[in-house]
């Protein structure tokens, strides 16, 4: 494996997208805003208990001269540390209108449960 190639990739410009995390007894729901990213531009990976979401913008289809710009051209990347209670093998993801939703279920053994008294 060529390490230089990897370094090149790391110098790419990314911006951290806005995110929200909610938790309930069953697990976590992580939502990340990536306007301009379609399913094809999305890459989600888990390494060393770290979840990395990378979103690459689809090229703009608008023809013409730019008169005014507020949007940023960088792609998105953000890394989240996974709680040890999360069952990494059961993570589900979808993207809808530029919002990535990840369902991070808790492992069975850490879910709150009621103990029946016999």
């Amino acid at each position, binding site marked *: 494996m060529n390490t230089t190639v990897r370094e090149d990739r790391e110098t790419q410009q990314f911006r951290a997208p806005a995110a929200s*995390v909610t*938790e309930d007894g069953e697990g976590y729901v992580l939502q990340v805003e990536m306007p301009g990213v379609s399913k094809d531009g999305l890459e989600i990976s888990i390494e060393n208990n770290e979840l990395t979401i990378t979103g690459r913008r689809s090229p703009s289809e*608008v023809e*013409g001269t730019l008169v005014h710009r507020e949007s940023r051209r960088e792609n998105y990347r953000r890394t989240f540390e996974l709680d040890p209670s999360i069952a990494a093998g059961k993570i589900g993801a979808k993207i809808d209108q530029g919002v990535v939703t990840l369902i991070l279920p808790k492992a069975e053994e850490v879910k709150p449960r009621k103990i029946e008294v016999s």
Partner: protein
Amino acid sequence: MSLIRYRTPELAAWPSFDRWSNLRDELNTLIELPLWPNSGRQAQLFSGWSPALDLYQNNDNVVAVVELPGMHKEEIEISLHDGTLTISGERKSESPKSANGEKAERSERYVGKFRRSVTLPTRVDATKVNASYRDGILTITLPKAEEAKPKQIQINAG
């Protein structure tokens, strides 16, 4: 937690109509804001959701592109009045489980109303405006009015 949009210094170099529309946005916010006696009015004025807006122009159209992630197209309102394009709407909190005790751990996503106005650089044909919403990006195509289109003028040889 509310996020404040980072404004790049080069904004000052934009043509004057953009600065006017920014001012108008701010004035609109002022008018619409209820007067909360205890909360920081200053903070409300400059925080909140101000979706990024790009404006393009070609021979036939003016195109506005707005980043609106995670909306339903029914929640977006587009209006054109007197050469000013306004995009407004409201993003509702979409946690379906919040009723049974789900707690927000951390949220940077803005929920609530937004409103952006931009003064268009040329006159447009309001009857032929077309809008599409894909990947959280709203694209509004406004065909230029006939008289605003660039025209080639033939020189007649005498």
